[in-house]
C-alpha cells in the first residue's frame, strides 16, 4: 500500500521534504497531546469525587520533601547575591542599596526560577519516575480496569499540590535568601541592619511581590504538568522511564525560563 509514512516510497530528492513534513506533524501532534493532557486534568478539578488523601500525600511529596533543598539553596543564593552585589555597589559608593537589590533580585526573578528548577530536579523527576514505573508495571492499567480514572489519582493531586506548594516554597526561598544576604552584607561586610531592611521597605513594592507570586503559581502548574505528562507517556522498560525522567527535567527547566521571560515582560 502507498503510505507517506514509509520513507522509501518517496523519490530520493523528495525524502528530506517528506521527513520535514513528518517531523512537523509529529511536533504538532505532540503539542496537541500535551495541551489535551492538561485540559483533561483540569476537567477533573471540578468533577467530584476529590481525592483529599492523595492531595495531602502529593503536598508532602512535592513540598515538604523539597524544603531542605529550598532552604539550603535559598540561603546560599542570598549569600552569593549579598557578596556580589555588595562588591559592585561599593564601586559606586551605593552599598546602602544592597537590601533592595538582593530582595528585588530574589522576589522578582531568582526566587521563583531557581526554586522551581531545584524542585523540578528533586520532586519533578521523582514524579515522572514514579508514574513511569506505574505505567510499565501496568499499575495505571490496573486503576483503569478498576473503573478509577488515573488522572484523578495521579495528575490532578500533583497539579493542585504544585499550585499550593510552589508559592509557599518560593516565599521560604525568598525569606531565607534575604537573610543570607543579610548575613554577608551586615554581619560580614559591616553594613548597618537598619539600612539593609529600611531601604528594602522603601523599594520593594506590592507589585514586585505579585510578580514573584504569579511566576511561582505558574511554575507550580508547569512542573507537575510536564512531569506527570512525561511519566504517563514514557516508553518501554527502565530505559523508557530513564529517558522520560531526563526529558521531564529538561523540558520543565526550559519552559520555566521561557515562561519566566514572558511573564517578566508582561507583568509590571
Amino acid at each position, binding site marked *: 500500500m502507498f503510505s507517506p509514512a514509509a520513507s522509501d516510497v518517496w523519490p530520493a530528492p523528495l525524502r528530506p521534504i517528506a521527513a520535514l513534513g513528518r517531523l512537523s506533524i509529529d511536533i504538532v501532534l505532540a503539542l496537541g497531546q500535551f495541551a489535551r493532557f492538561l485540559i483533561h486534568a483540569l476537567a477533573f478539578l471540578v468533577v467530584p469525587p476529590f481525592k483529599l488523601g492523595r492531595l495531602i500525600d502529593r503536598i508532602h511529596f512535592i513540598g515538604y520533601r523539597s524544603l531542605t533543598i529550598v532552604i539550603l539553596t535559598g540561603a546560599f543564593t542570598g549569600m552569593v547575591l549579598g557578596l556580589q552585589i555588595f562588591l559592585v555597589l561599593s564601586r559606586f559608593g551605593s552599598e546602602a542599596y544592597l537590601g533592595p537589590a538582593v530582595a528585588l533580585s530574589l522576589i522578582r526573578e531568582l526566587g521563583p526560577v531557581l526554586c522551581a528548577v531545584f524542585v523540578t530536579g528533586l520532586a519533578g523527576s521523582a514524579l515522572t519516575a514514579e508514574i513511569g*514505573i*506505574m505505567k510499565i*508495571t*501496568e*499499575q495505571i*492499567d*490496573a486503576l*483503569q*480496569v*478498576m*473503573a*478509577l480514572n488515573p488522572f484523578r489519582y495521579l495528575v490532578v493531586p500533583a497539579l493542585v499540590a504544585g499550585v499550593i506548594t510552589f508559592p509557599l516554597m518560593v516565599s521560604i526561598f525568598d525569606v531565607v535568601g534575604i537573610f543570607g544576604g543579610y548575613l554577608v552584607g551586615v554581619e560580614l561586610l559591616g553594613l548597618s541592619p537598619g539600612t539593609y531592611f529600611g531601604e528594602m521597605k522603601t523599594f520593594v513594592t506590592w507589585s514586585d511581590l505579585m510578580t514573584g507570586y504569579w511566576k511561582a503559581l505558574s511554575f507550580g502548574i508547569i512542573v507537575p504538568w510536564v512531569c506527570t505528562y512525561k511519566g504517563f507517556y514514557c516508553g518501554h522498560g527502565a530505559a523508557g522511564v530513564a529517558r522520560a525522567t531526563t526529558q521531564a527535567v529538561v523540558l520543565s527547566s526550559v519552559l520555566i525560563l521561557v515562561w519566566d521571560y514572558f511573564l517578566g515582560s508582561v507583568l509590571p
Partner: protein
Amino acid sequence: MIRVQGLHKRFGSQEVLRGIDLDVATGEIMVVIGRSGGGKSVLLKHMIGLLRPDSGAVLVDGTDITRLRGRALDRVRERYGVVFQGGALFDSMSVWENVAFPLREKSRRSPAEIRERVEEKLEQVGLTGMGDKNPAEISGGMRKRVAIARALVTEPEIVFFDEPTTGLDPILVNTIHHLIVDLHHKFRFTAVMVSHEIPEIFEVGDRVAMLHDGVIVEVGAPEAVRGSAKAVVQHFIRGEVEPVPADHTSRPVR
C-alpha cells in the same frame, strides 16, 4: 456472555489480530493458549477495554464495549476483576491496602465491612497475616495471590487472568491453578485466562482456545483441543519447533 467478533488490530506494519472470533459462556473458564508474542495479551486488553480495535467488536452481554467511553465503559468494568501478568500491585501500598483499595474507592461499605472482606480474601488465597507486608517484600507467588485477592475482592462477575503463573516454579503453578479453580467453584465467575502452561492448563479450563498468527485456530473442550488434528496445535502442545517452510530451505545457494 462475552462475544468477540472479527477483531482486527495492527501496530504499525504488524497485524497482531487478524479477525478473532470467540465466545465465552457465562460461568465458564475459557483458557486462551498460544505462543509468546502471538497476540494473547493484546486480545485480553481489547476484552477489558484498554485497547481499541481497528475493526470488530467485543460484546459483553450484548453491549459492544469497543464503542464505550468514560462512565459507560466504567460501568462494564465495575463487573470485572483483572489479574495482570506482573500482578500490577500498587507498590506504595501494603498488601492489605492493595486488596482493600477497590472496595475503599468503589463501594459504600463501612471500614469494618471492608476489613472483614479483605481478611476473608487474604485467607482464601492463603495469605492470612501477610497484610502488613509491602509488595516488594514478598515472593513472586505471593504477589500473584495478592493480585488474585485484589481482583476478586469486589466479587466480580467476570475475571481476566493474564498469564497468572508466568515465572513461577511448577509447584507454585499448580498451587495458583488450584486456587483459581477453587475460587471459581465458590464464586462461579466467568473467567478468561491467557496462559501457556502446557499441559497443566488443560486441567483448569472448561474450554481452551488456541491463538496462532492472529486468529483462533482451534477452540473446544480441553480433550478436543488436545486431540486436534491441526499440526500447529500439536506442535504447540508438544513444544516442538515448527518446520521451516519449504521455500526458505530450498533457496539456491550462490
